[in-house]
């Protein structure tokens, strides 16, 4: 069914049409959320909230817009809000831990340049450094880079999602790559040499 017809039916409280919309776009929404939060369970929880918001505010949807653009926008906003809350919780927990548990605990950190480390550990280390580097990008660079690289969203659609011009998106992604490169090179220089 075409998206416009689907939306019209959802506005008229057609639950089957809503199910069709969810089935059609669930992987897009979940994978987008996962690209930002990097956890499949958290991504599914956020995606549920995305669809609930769609259901509750479907009457506000402008017909000339693309539903995928709207879905991407809500998914990005909700994912970034989730990351912000998670950071706050981590900070609160670390403060609590500092005051309640003053004894130093030993933490096992796997050797980063161990030649005997298996591929699984190496991949985890790569993931960690990549996600941390992406996380340290500016707000807009992070959104543009993540949508383009993880979700293969075109520059044109990113421009629509972020409400920016095409040239701004190009520049954002270019700067994101330069910053990411700097961070990765700095990290590996410290660990190799």
């Amino acid at each position, binding site marked *: 069914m075409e998206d416009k017809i689907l939306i019209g039916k959802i506005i008229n409280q057609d*639950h089957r049409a809503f*199910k069709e919309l*969810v*089935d059609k776009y*669930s*992987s897009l929404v*979940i*994978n987008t959320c*996962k*690209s930002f939060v990097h956890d*499949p369970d958290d991504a*599914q929880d956020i*995606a*549920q909230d995305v*669809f*609930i918001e769609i*259901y509750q505010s479907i009457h506000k949807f402008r017909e000339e817009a693309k539903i995928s653009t709207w879905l991407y926008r809500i998914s990005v906003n909700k994912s970034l809000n989730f990351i912000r809350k998670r950071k706050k919780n981590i900070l609160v927990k670390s403060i609590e831990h500092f005051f309640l548990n003053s004894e130093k605990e030993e933490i096992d950190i796997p050797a980063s340049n161990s030649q005997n480390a298996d591929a699984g550990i*190496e*991949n985890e280390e*790569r*993931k960690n*450094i*990549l996600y941390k580097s992406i996380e340290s990008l500016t707000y807009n660079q992070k959104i543009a880079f993540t949508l383009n*690289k*993880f979700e293969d969203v075109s520059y044109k659609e990113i421009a629509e999602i972020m409400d920016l011009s095409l040239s701004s998106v190009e520049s954002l992604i270019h700067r994101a*790559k*330069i910053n*990411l*490169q700097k961070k*990765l*090179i700095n990290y*590996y*220089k410290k660990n*190799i*040499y």
Partner: protein
Amino acid sequence: MNCKEVHKNLIFYFENELNTETQSKIKEHINDCVSCKILYEKIKNTLGIINIEEKNKSYPFFFTRIQQKIDELNSSEIKTGFLPSFTKLLKPVTLAILIAFGIFFGINLGNKYETNNYTESNENLLQAYANEYYVNGLNEETIETFLLND
């Protein structure tokens, strides 16, 4: 091309975004320089993580969970009815009433004990009060009378 220039373009080299001349110069350098080769391999493997990120296609019971959440939201709205909007309104209204009452009470209290605006009846009342409780100095026994009496 030196190492510094190569480091500046590694990500673009990896993504094949440079012109053919620069691509081949970097390729040549990487083949000759051991440290740049190691660095390139590390960055290539790290950026390669993006392409091997697991992309699931099906999510069983996903719609059922959304439906359940929507039902819960609807039922909680029915239960509370107009209460959420009422409680939202109640707070500022109560605060406004309390402030207005405070101002009114303050003005009334101030008027009641105002000292500069005596009326005649107030004067008489004060005099009677003073006499009763020996506040008036003239009605008090002087020290001489007190000594003479003894």
